[in-house]
């Protein structure tokens, strides 16, 4: 017989207050999650919460990706020597070096360039910030800054792939996919890995691909305007009969499945329509930023006259709302145009523009997470694909620099106030405790309770990992210590 009444029942209930009920139940589930191995993914329930391998410091992640290559010694890595040498040729000692990636001097002038910024120390830690980041500076003591990152390519797409997927070739699962695969997600009505962007990083969807991991772990884009997810609702004239249309299809699907016992996918597909329906209501609710107080909206600058800043503010606020709903991994891309921080010809303008768009919303996000008690369990990461040269390019630009750049983390049990490693006096190369991207990934996974070598997926006869060959990585010191 047909089971229409019960299904209709279900949807009625879910359209009402299902979301909050479900969330409570799911958070409870997370607390007492039954041990389940990583590799045994139930196709009917792929996002089910899985136990971490080791004690976690953070449960969720917000990755604020800064694309284009921010010049970190223009933002938060104070280099007095560079300021002193402004306009002078690069000292010979910096040229005599056999760099392994590309040839960074080739497109630069033999002239060092300092920014026109005012630098000041902030917080108890006395951390330096330039006047580009007045808001982030207020969180000086909460940041854990790694000052000695290096990349393996000086080219956007490979370096962006590296930061997001651990390899300079595209086609591997992204960090967010690995984390969601490893831990599942606390909210079964929303994707476990959500992306927020206006313009995404160079290299396209490979940056948030699940690659060979199951599709449930791919990044899903949430829009910060309009319907939060593409195809969430049918065209308006068909919306009214949506449920009735679906009920007919599901009735036939059940008849079909009953004749084919043992084919799990058929049941899975019936269930996926239910989830799609639940997603619709839950996602729509997430997108309702008007539910936030005016003060909160203003803090994030969601109505700012700088529309780019307002858009980024909405993304940051959405990120917090998604985290609050239990989504495991949220990643935002900073830019509203294709330029990002990529200031080849006019570095000052690029950095003024991008800092103005992102500084206040990011600071608001940190404050907001802290006030809501979410910062302790949410790891916030700020990182680009590489840094920029202290040498001048073109009129007043800077070229890509994979040899040395800063990233920062906050919340999620990282060592607040710490600074790790250093670049040389002009900010060109990492010289103290240089850190490959692999170490950053290993550190992030460890913070989440995932042992980097135990987080693997068998693919074409090989145990694939985010961090590559077992024990080929090291934790970045003093981040989790």
């Amino acid at each position, binding site marked *: 017989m047909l089971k229409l009444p019960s299904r209709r029942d279900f949807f009625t209930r879910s359209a009402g207050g299902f979301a909050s009920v479900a969330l409570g139940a799911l958070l409870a589930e997370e607390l007492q999650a039954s041990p389940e191995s990583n590799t045994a993914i139930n196709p009917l329930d792929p996002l089910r919460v899985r136990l971490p391998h080791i004690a976690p410091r953070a449960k969720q992640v917000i990755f604020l990706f800064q694309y284009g290559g921010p010049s970190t010694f223009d933002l938060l890595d104070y280099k007095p020597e560079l300021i002193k040498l402004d306009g002078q040729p690069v000292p010979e000692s910096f040229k005599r070096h056999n760099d392994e990636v*590309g040839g960074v001097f080739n497109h630069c002038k033999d002239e060092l360039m300092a920014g026109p910024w005012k630098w000041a120390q902030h917080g108890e830690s006395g951390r330096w910030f330039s006047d580009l980041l007045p808001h982030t500076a207020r969180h000086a003591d909460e940041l854990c800054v790694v000052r000695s990152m290096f990349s393996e390519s000086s*080219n956007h797409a490979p370096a962006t792939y590296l930061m997001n997927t651990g390899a300079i070739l595209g086609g591997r699962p992204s960090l967010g996919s690995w984390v969601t695969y490893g831990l599942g997600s606390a909210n079964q009505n929303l994707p476990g890995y959500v992306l927020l962007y206006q*313009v995404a990083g160079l290299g396209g969807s490979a940056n948030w691909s699940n690659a060979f991991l199951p599709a449930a772990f791919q990044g899903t884009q949430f829009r910060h305007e309009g319907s939060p997810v593409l195809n969430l609702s*049918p065209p308006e004239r068909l919306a009214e009969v949506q449920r009735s249309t679906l009920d007919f299809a599901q009735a036939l699907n059940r008849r079909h499945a009953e004749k084919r016992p043992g084919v799990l996918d058929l049941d*899975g597909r019936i269930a996926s329509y239910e989830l799609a329906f639940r997603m619709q209501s839950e996602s729509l609710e997430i997108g309702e930023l008007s539910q936030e107080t005016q003060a909160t909206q203003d803090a994030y600058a969601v109505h700012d006259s700088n529309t780019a800043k307002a858009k980024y503010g909405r993304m940051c606020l959405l990120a917090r709302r998604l985290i609050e709903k239990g989504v495991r991994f949220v990643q935002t891309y900073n830019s509203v145009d294709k330029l990002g921080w990529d200031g080849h010809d006019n570095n000052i303008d690029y950095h003024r523009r991008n800092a103005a768009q992102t500084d206040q919303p990011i600071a608001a996000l940190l404050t907001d997470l802290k006030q809501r008690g979410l910062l302790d369990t949410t790891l916030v990461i700020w990182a680009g694909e590489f840094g920029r040269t202290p040498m001048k390019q073109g009129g007043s630009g800077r070229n890509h620099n994979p040899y040395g750049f800063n990233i920062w983390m906050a919340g999620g049990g990282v060592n607040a106030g710490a600074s790790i490693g250093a670049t040389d006096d002009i900010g060109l190369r990492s010289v103290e405790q240089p850190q490959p991207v692999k170490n950053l990934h290993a550190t992030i996974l460890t913070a989440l309770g995932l042992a980097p070598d135990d987080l693997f997926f068998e693919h*074409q006869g090989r145990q694939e990992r985010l961090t590559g060959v077992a024990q080929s990585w090291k934790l970045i010191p003093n981040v989790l210590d």
Partner: protein
Amino acid sequence: MIDTKRRSFAALAFLMAWCLSECALVGADDFSPKQIELFEKDVRPLLKAKCLSCHGPDKQAGGLRLDSLQSALKGGDSGPAIVPGDAAKSLLVKAVRFDDPDLQMPPKDQLAAKEIQALTWWINDGAVWPRPVLVLFDDEEPFLAALTKGEAKSRFERRDTHRGSLAVAVSPREKFDEQIADWKLPIREKPGPAEFRYLRYAWKKTGGGGAMLEVAREGKWPPAKATPAPGGRYVAGPNETGMDAIVVDDAAPQDWTVVTIDLWKDLGDCEVTGLSLMASGSGETLFDAMLLGSSIADLDAWSPGRGDLAFKPAPKIEPVGTAFEDSRNPIRKLFRGERLDLWSLKPVVSTSVLETQRGDSAELSSKMIDRLIDKRLAEADITPAPEADRRTLIRRLAFDLTGLPPKPDEVATFLGDKSPDALETVVDRLLASAAYGERQARLWLDVVRYADTNGYERDEFRPRIWMYRDYVVRSFNSDKPFDQFIREQLAGDEIVNGLPQNSAEADALIATGYLRLGQWDSTASIFQEEDRLRAEMMADLTNTTASAFLGLTMSCCQCHDHKYDPLSQADHYRLRAFFAGVTPQDDLVVELPQQRQANEQHNSALGQRIEQLKAEQAKLDKEQEPGKTRAAELSKEISALEAQKRQPLSAMGATDAGSSAPVTRVLYQGVFRDPRDEVAPGFPSVLYPGPAEIHAPTESTTGRRLALANWITSSSNPWPARVIVNRVWQQHFGTGLVATPNDFGMTGARPTHPELLDYLAARFVRDGWSIKRLHRAIVMTRAYRRESAHEAVAAKIDPDNRLLWRQNVRRLDAETLRDSLLAVSGLLKKNDGGKPIWPEVPRELLHAQPAILEAIEGKDDGRRQGWYTDPVEATDVRSLYLVRKRCLPIPFLQAFDLPDTTVSCARRDTTVVAPQALMLLNSLTAVRYAEAFADRVWQACKLPAGESQETDESPRIVAAVFQLALARDPEPEERKLAQDLLLRHADKHRVNASKSEAERLALIDLCRAMFNLNEFIYID
């Protein structure tokens, strides 16, 4: 001081006298040939065989050694072993005679009487024991290679030798090395074991000029000038070197002449480390039989084949065998003989014996396949499912062979065909349809990771790579032998060589597009990362080729030896070396001669006309009217004519750069900046340890890829036929006989039916690698035709249906789903290939891609990195023809598990996620298809205006909807639900629409629902 036997008998006599006096204690030094013969032939071998294991260099039982005359005379604990000239007093003879019960040697194993007699004679004759001579050169090939320096030509002379089979010939002026590896040959006045005093050699000078020999000691040559002439440099004939030398002979040796030199007299105690062989004037100096001896007598006693060798003769190049048969095989050594039980290494075993017994034909036989499957089912005690009904069968066949649903009239024809070969008729029709090639092509393009764009930052469009896609379609439709298909893709350029003479050759060139399918970072050069890019391309080609054709995971041994399979890291680079010469060609001319000629005529006619116009233009007065206007007209006309000139038809492919390729080296840990040992092109060492045999077809290419292609398609290769038949099997059952089609290694799946796999592979090769015949044989089996219905008993024994007791329920892949939606809605348009079609995608997705955004803003400098949306009507073609852009997969297809285009995809995922439901329910694309479907049904069923509008058409409409979407009639309950939906929805839509529009909208809802049925997206 020198002498030659020929010239200086006095000196020789003196020497011999000296020797006799000095050497009296250690035995006579002047040996007769007979004595030498006796010792070398009977005594030395006897001592070696019976005595030295206990009284030799390794062990000295009783303190006795018997490996030199000195040690035998010295004797052991019981005194001297021999007394020369008196066998009776020699302990050795006593011992071997077993006279004394306490002294019997060799213990328990008395020598033969003949052997005892030989020892007795030898001792009585004076115990002649020549010391071993050191042979610097007689017939040993490494000698010449050891003389690494000098500009002269040197060679081996094989006919004109002094002794043995080789002499060395050196042309002016010299070959030399003052420090030959490991040479430190002691020269002493009284040589002990392994010490020497005399050098002897034979030489001969051809042509004019002189011959010279130099001896280096302690790495140094004799001084150039010295009086008297320095020892160590010896000349015969004219000395044209300007260096002082001891004159051996005033005349150059016209015939072989033996020279003996007392090196100790000339050089004193020293270590000889090198030689120089010289010639002056014209012709060559030939050298042979170069020896060092302790005494003249020892040298005299020497004959070829005796003595110690300064250079071990080069080992005969004996090919190393497979790891199964040869302990020298590198893989056997590397993994200590383990890992060899890998099933896919074993040769394909045809079940022909079994077959002939049963009298089957030699061709691929469906019966034979069934027999091999039924055997396993019977063993497991499983009763297979019955044959599926015809409606299910035709749906299954149509999807599997063409990727499209059957048309209602095709279903009706099949259901009504009562002839015994009704099924064969359908199969043959499907295999002959153009849609067959399109379906096969889609699956192959997955394996070779085809895309229309470069990937990475800019992701530019590749304007002509679609020619490769169309080539694949053509190849499958014409049932090109699969081995030829492989060869063309790997080495079409080496097969054709130059401009194509016919369409088959043009296709072979287009096939080299295979070598270009990987990602390509066009911005790498801006950042000096070309080396990285090249290394990535090489690795990618290697890994893809191994996966696609061999089922080997070569990607796993790029950084280290394979963790599980019998593959070494070197194997990866040996395979990589085949591609070392690959040079991308963006304009590989594939035009046929006739067209080339026509184009040339066309272009030259245009050229002539242009010349005429230019001539006219030149005569005009361009400063004044009317000349000014006329000149402008002419310019316009000229450029119009220029634009009409035809460019040769060209494809995106590859060739080799020339007759040689860059060296390939093993990269330490896979890092391109850390190259180590050089490797030559070679196949997996476990079976083919030697270097590959390569013959370049012309001077413009290396022939490497041709060699690779020929090896891959050789019948002895165990992998390729198994790999492809397994792929085709997977196409029909959802899972291959080997469940991991790109991994036939240790961690891959084992074949469920090894005998069947080998039967298919062997027959496939024998049938001329025909894919169509293979399909036909598989789909005609009873196994293929079974119901997919679940059966409790069988399911308990074999829940995963690995024994094939039923068909598997399978989900349509992304492209087949979209193509079905188009076919059912009546929108599907025929397409003959060509440039890819760009469907509309949401604007915000385009804007989200920086590279596309740059193009939209017109800032991509013509690099074609944008999205070039075609009119919507043009996009209703099979998904094969839609653009595959790496940075932005078409969202509708991506939702249904479109594979990544970075690496080879052997099998589509079929995940079930909520976004699929949203896409199929709500997307504008899906709604558009539903509207078209509704309109199609509407037009077919709705009576023309004016006829009775009162009749209820809904039963006919519902029947048509079910027939088109599911190829069946609705069941009564379904009919009721569907009619009910039409009624209720028409009512609801009536609020905002006319009656007929409301009915149409209701029908759209029904059609939308049909597209979301499991029955629509799964095949039984």
